[in-house]
C-alpha cells in the first residue's frame, strides 16, 4: 500500500484548485490513507467476468428537440444577480493567462 506524502497532497490540491495549508496537508494525507485502507477490499473481489455499472436505469442517449425553451430563460439581470463582480452586463472573470 502506497503512502501519501504532503507533496502528493499539494499536487492533488493544485489539480482540484483548492488552497490548503501545511497543517491541512498533514491531516489530508492521513485521511487519504484511512480512506484508501478501507476501499482496499475492492481488490479482493473477482470482477473478471462483470461489466461496470455507471447508471442504474439503463437509459441511453436521452435527447431533446433543439428549440428555445422560454420557460427556463433568465433575464440578464437575473443571470447576473448572484455574480460577485459584473461590468456593463457581463460577468467579470479572473485573468488566467499572463499572470506574471
Amino acid at each position, binding site marked *: 500500500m502506497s503512502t501519501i506524502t504532503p507533496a502528493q*497532497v499539494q499536487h*492533488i*490540491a493544485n*489539480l*482540484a*484548485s*483548492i*488552497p*490548503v495549508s501545511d497543517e*491541512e496537508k498533514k*491531516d*489530508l494525507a492521513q*485521511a*487519504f490513507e*484511512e*480512506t484508501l485502507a*478501507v*476501499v*482496499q*477490499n*475492492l*481488490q479482493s*473481489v473477482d*470482477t473478471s467476468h*462483470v*461489466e*461496470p*455499472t*455507471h*447508471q*442504474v*436505469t439503463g*437509459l441511453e442517449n*436521452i435527447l*431533446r428537440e433543439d428549440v428555445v425553451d422560454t420557460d*427556463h430563460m*433568465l433575464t440578464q439581470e*437575473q*443571470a447576473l*444577480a*448572484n*455574480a*460577485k463582480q459584473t461590468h456593463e452586463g457581463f*460577468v*467579470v*472573470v*479572473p485573468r488566467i493567462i499572463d499572470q506574471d
Partner: protein
Amino acid sequence: MLAKKTLTQVLDLLEKKEITLEELHKDLHAAVAEKNETLNVYLTVNTASAEEAAQRSEAALRGIPIAVKDNYCTKGIRTTASSTVLDTFVPPYDSTVIANLKKAGASILGKTNLDAWAHGSSTETSQYGRTLNPRNTNHLPGGSSGGSAAAVAADMAIAALGTETAGSIRQPAAWCGIVGLKPTYGRCSRYGVVAMASSTDSPGPMTKTVEDAALLLNHMAGHDKYDGTTADVSVPDFTQAIGKSIKGLKIGYVYHSIEGLEESNAHLAKELEVFKKLGATVEKVEAMDPHYAISVYTVVQRGEVSSNLGRYDGIRYGNDRSFFGAEAKRRIMLGTYTLSKGYSDQYYNTAQKVRSLYIQDYNKLFETYDVLISLTSPGYAKKIGATEGEAMFGELEDMLLEPSSISGLPGISVPCYRDPETNLFLGMNIVAPMWKEETVIQVADAYEKATNWNTWRAAEKAGE
C-alpha cells in the same frame, strides 16, 4: 397545536374547513420560533409562507407548508447546501420537485440544515453548526438530511423533503424516529438539486407516517425533460398501497448476522414476528457482504463529487473555493486522486464492477422475495461530536443502506424500537426492486399500523 398533526390529518381538517390556512402557518411559525434556537433545524425561514399558500389553497395540497432541505433550489429563497460557498446564493429558479409541489399546492416553510453539500451522516459538517436530535438533544439527528428529519420529529413541520445518495434520507429518519422514503433512482428529478453523486442522488419525502410519505411522493415524482436520468415510466398513485394486506408476501431478513449489530438485530428480529401475524412469511437470507458497498460508494461518490463541485468557482455565483470546509476538501481531493491517471482503473472502474455484482445479487434475491428487510442503521443516534477525526464516519454508519443505494433501489425506514432510557429510536429498512415503491409503502404501512413505535400513530390511537 396544529404543528403536531400529520399531513393527512391537516389536509382533512382543511378540507372540512375546521381549520384555516392562516392558523396552520401561524402555529408552524410559532413552533419554529420556539425551538429553532436550540435545535438549529432551519437555516432560512420563509416568512411569506402564508401569503404564498393562500394562492394555492384550491390545489391538492391546499397550501400546506413543507420543510425543504437546503440543497433544493428555491426561487427567491437563499439556498446554501449548508456551505458558506453558497452563503448568499439566491436561486433564480425552482428545482423540478419544488415546482411540482408548488403546482400541487404546497408552500415552503423554510430551508433545513444538512451536512455541507450533503457530505456526511450527522449534520456536523454543516458550516452553519450542527442540528440537535429533538428526541434527545445530547445526540445527533443523523444526516445528511438531519435538519429535515429533526423538523418532522420536533413537530416544527408537517412534512419535509430530503435527498439521499446513500442513506441521507433513511438514516436520519431512523435516528429521529420518523419515516424516510428513498424512491427509485430516476423517480424524482434531480434538476435544481445541488449535485453530489449524480449516479445515486434521489430526492424523497421525510414524514410522520408512511401514508404521508406516499401522498407527498405522488406530487414529487415524474419524468422531467430537464433531468435525462428520470425515467419515462408512469407514476402510480402511491396511496393505493396504504391499507393493503400483506398476506402471502415473502420477506427476506438480511444483514442479521453482522458482527457488532447483535443488540440492534435482536430488537429487529422480535419486530419481524409482527409480519408473520399479518400473514407474510419471513426468512433469514444471506445477501452480499455490505462492507464492499462501503468501498464502492466511497470511490464512486468521491469521484462524482470532485467533478460536480468543480463548478464552484465564485464567478457566476457564490464564494470561491477557499470557502470549502474540511470534509468537502477531503472528498473533492480524494475523488481527484482516485480518478487520476494510473489510479482510475484500480479504484473507479473496479468499484463500478463491484456495483454490478450487488445489482446481480439483488436480482437473484428478488426472484424469491418481495422485499428485503434489515436494520436502517447499526445502532441508535450517536452523541454530538462523534464525527471528530473520523474520515469514514458516514460510510460506516450507512453501511446497511449503501448496497441498495448504489443499486438504485427504493427503500423506506420506519421506527421499529424506542429505547426507554435514552428516548432514541431504531429504524427498519425495507427495500424492493426498482420502481416498486408501492411494495415498500404497503409493507411499511402495515407494520406501522400494527405496532406502536410511530409517535403520531400512537397519539392517533390514544385519541389525541
